[in-house]
């Protein structure tokens, strides 16, 4: 190579565009935290004054705490179940010769692209026909469908990325299956597992559509927020709650993606 071509050089226009794009992406979201500190009941400029009162009120609302508890329960179990299933499935897809591997993977990843309302109403139809009461369990069932693709997408590259010879060596030393799995496989794919847990937790924690169709009388946080949007005087408190939800989700996802250095991005290759 004789000279460095211009596609290696910094490009001022593109840098400006990148800044503009990031602005487009983030500024709209930042208005939620901004107005959550505004003392006015309605959202409007100029901001009348600053206050923490909406946050204070938030913690006095038992309904919020109940919804939080429900959301954590659902998201926690969904994260564990979909990650476990994801580990099995990813291992199977990478390590074994299985007929129809492509279609199976496609089927598992399908919920990434099908409008969630379709799964929501289809599941509602089944649950209602079978006479199963709507509850946190039905929400969790719906969330597992949505979270599985994310779990697999996070875990597959982990299994692809390490040498199966390690497992074989351990097995040849006479260790049994579980031992090999726990002492060899798990430590290697651990970042993937942690990332999958964090990401699926967040997806379930923030999911609204499935919860809307499949929810019973126990509300999750997004359902609570939806209900509160109707009430004028609850508005600023919803903004405060939304700010906390956003912060929490951002932290979890950032951690998850950071731990899992590849994964969710690599999976796009498959599409």
């Amino acid at each position, binding site marked *: 190579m004789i000279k460095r071509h211009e596609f290696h050089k910094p490009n001022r226009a593109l840098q400006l565009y990148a800044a503009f794009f990031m602005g487009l992406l983030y500024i709209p979201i930042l208005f939620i935290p901004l107005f959550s500190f505004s003392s006015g009941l309605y959202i409007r400029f100029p901001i009348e004054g600053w206050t923490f009162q909406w946050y204070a009120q938030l913690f006095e609302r038992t309904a919020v705490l109940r919804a939080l508890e429900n959301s954590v329960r659902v998201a926690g179990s969904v994260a564990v179940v979909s990650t476990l299933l994801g580990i099995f499935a990813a291992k199977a*897809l990478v390590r074994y010769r299985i007929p129809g591997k492509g279609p199976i993977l496609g089927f598992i990843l399908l919920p990434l692209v099908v*409008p969630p309302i379709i*799964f929501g109403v289809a599941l509602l139809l089944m649950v209602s026909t079978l006479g199963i009461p709507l509850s946190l369990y039905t929400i969790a069932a719906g969330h597992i469908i949505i979270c*599985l693709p994310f779990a697999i997408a996070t875990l597959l590259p982990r299994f692809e990325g390490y040498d199966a010879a390690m497992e074989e060596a351990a097995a040849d030393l006479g260790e049994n*299956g579980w031992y090999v799995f726990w002492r060899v496989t798990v430590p290697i794919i651990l970042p993937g597992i942690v990332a999958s847990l964090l990401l699926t937790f967040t997806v379930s924690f923030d999911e609204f559509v499935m919860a809307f169709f499949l929810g019973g009388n126990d509300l999750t946080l997004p359902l609570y927020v939806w209900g509160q949007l109707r009430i004028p005087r609850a508005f600023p408190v919803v903004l405060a709650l939304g700010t906390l939800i956003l912060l929490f989700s951002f932290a979890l996802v950032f951690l998850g*993606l950071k731990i899992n250095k590849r994964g969710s991005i690599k999976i796009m290759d498959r599409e």
Partner: protein
Amino acid sequence: MTITHSSDGLGTTGARRGTSSLRRLLARFESLRGLALLAPTLVILGITVIVPFLLMSAMSLWTQIGFDYADDWSVRNYTTILSEPLYTTLLLRSLGMAMAATLLTVVLAYPMAYFLAFHVHRNKLVWLIIITLPFWTSYLLRVFAWRVILGYEGVINSGLMEIGLIAEPLNVLLYSRTAVIITLAHAWAAFALLPIYVSLEKIDKSVLEASADLGEGPVMRFFRVILPLSMPGVIAGTFLMFIPTVGDYVTPALVGGPNAQMIGNLVQLQFGTVNNWPMGAALAITMILSITLVGLLFLGLMYALRRWAR
């Protein structure tokens, strides 16, 4: 992907080596062992996806009478959908709005993906994380944020009035198709960006250098090398965004107003106020079929374009 022999899997829970005949069978038929590992996932997806789907297809052929269904197996719901302008218009509108939002997003995301692929050399991962971060988090709140921005007393209106550009708030921002398209584009930006980025990232830099050495200018090079090579990513991004947005109902419900309701709203109503589940099922299935049709048409068009370009 290499398929290696692995001597022990999870399918054989705790059994000692070579004790059960089932185990030996599994060892002999590797694919069976793989399937055993996949089984829980497939069973769960079977119960939560396939069965409900079959049920929904069946119910779409029923009729709602008062509080009951008549399982009279007629295509009445479908003929209603095809003959009543309400359903066809909303379906076409949803496809159109999803297309507009997708186009907007792809056009906006492409330069960003290009920047990431070719001009970011350090901390690439952090960049990618920061871009995808909003996508993972509360959809409801992101839509809601746009209500805050576009509202009559929202950020844009009160901001413009504050600096004296307008005297009266603009009425056209909220409750319009544009509002829905902007909100959708914003909500899905990261999803469409990733595949484009991946396809750009994969382009072999030496191909670019060769093209430059042949004396092609940057514009030429972009259209003759980079754009064609990144098309798979663009197509993937288009699909990933277009399909789910057709069925969205939260965005039109919150920022849409009467002229921007989409087919998803209609489906939701059948399962809510209108209380006609068979009709809702038929609408949902019509939605999937039309998305598939549009998708196939799009792929066909891309294929034709590629042949023509050669």
